[in-house]
């Protein structure tokens, strides 16, 4: 059963993983809202090193306000960004 549900507030971690990861730098440490659960997928952090049989990991799409991502954001105040984050890169928002 997925740890988070749509609407849950989360914070994206910075796992300091020294290798291939799929969580871009610009969303790390950001607070976000779960938009949907995407299913469970093999971890690209394993796949990138040839391990095709590692555990599957829950994947979510999250929703972030652009104004929170970029202090100098010049677009509209209601603009948003959505991005996929694996479970092990998420904490519940404090």
């Amino acid at each position: 059963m997925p740890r988070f549900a749509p609407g849950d507030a989360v914070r994206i971690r910075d796992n300091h993983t020294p290798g291939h990861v799929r969580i871009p730098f610009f969303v790390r440490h950001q607070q976000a809202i779960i938009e949907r659960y995407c299913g469970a997928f093999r971890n690209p952090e394993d796949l990138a090193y040839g391990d095709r049989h590692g555990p599957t990991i829950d994947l979510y799409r999250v929703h972030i306000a652009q104004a929170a991502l970029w202090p100098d954001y010049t677009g509209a105040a209601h603009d948003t960004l959505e991005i996929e984050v694996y479970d092990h890169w998420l904490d519940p928002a404090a």
Partner: protein
Amino acid sequence: MSEPPFRGYHDIGGRPAGPVACVEKPFDDWQKLSEAIRGAMDAQHQIVSLDEIRRVFESFGEPLYETLGFYERRAEALSILLAEKGVVSLPDIHARMEAIAAARGQRVDHTEKTVT
């Protein structure tokens, strides 16, 4: 002590960059063949996944990443990965490139990545 931020050179979302050149370019035959070699080798031998290709071009060095185009980066990563897996060696690939080029009266520079 706080750990340093980890950010690969490929992780460019949000960095300053120039105008987006809204032009179209054809999907060249060599680009199709390069993508097809990867796809076929992965389908036949489960040996060159896209995740592995990404890992390689994210670690072959910033100078190469900066100068090469998209399909060129993937082709470079494919050769490194196949060598890493012991499928074909880089010296063998380079020697074959030189032989093909010589037959056409051309020279290959593996440092500059040029054929003249």
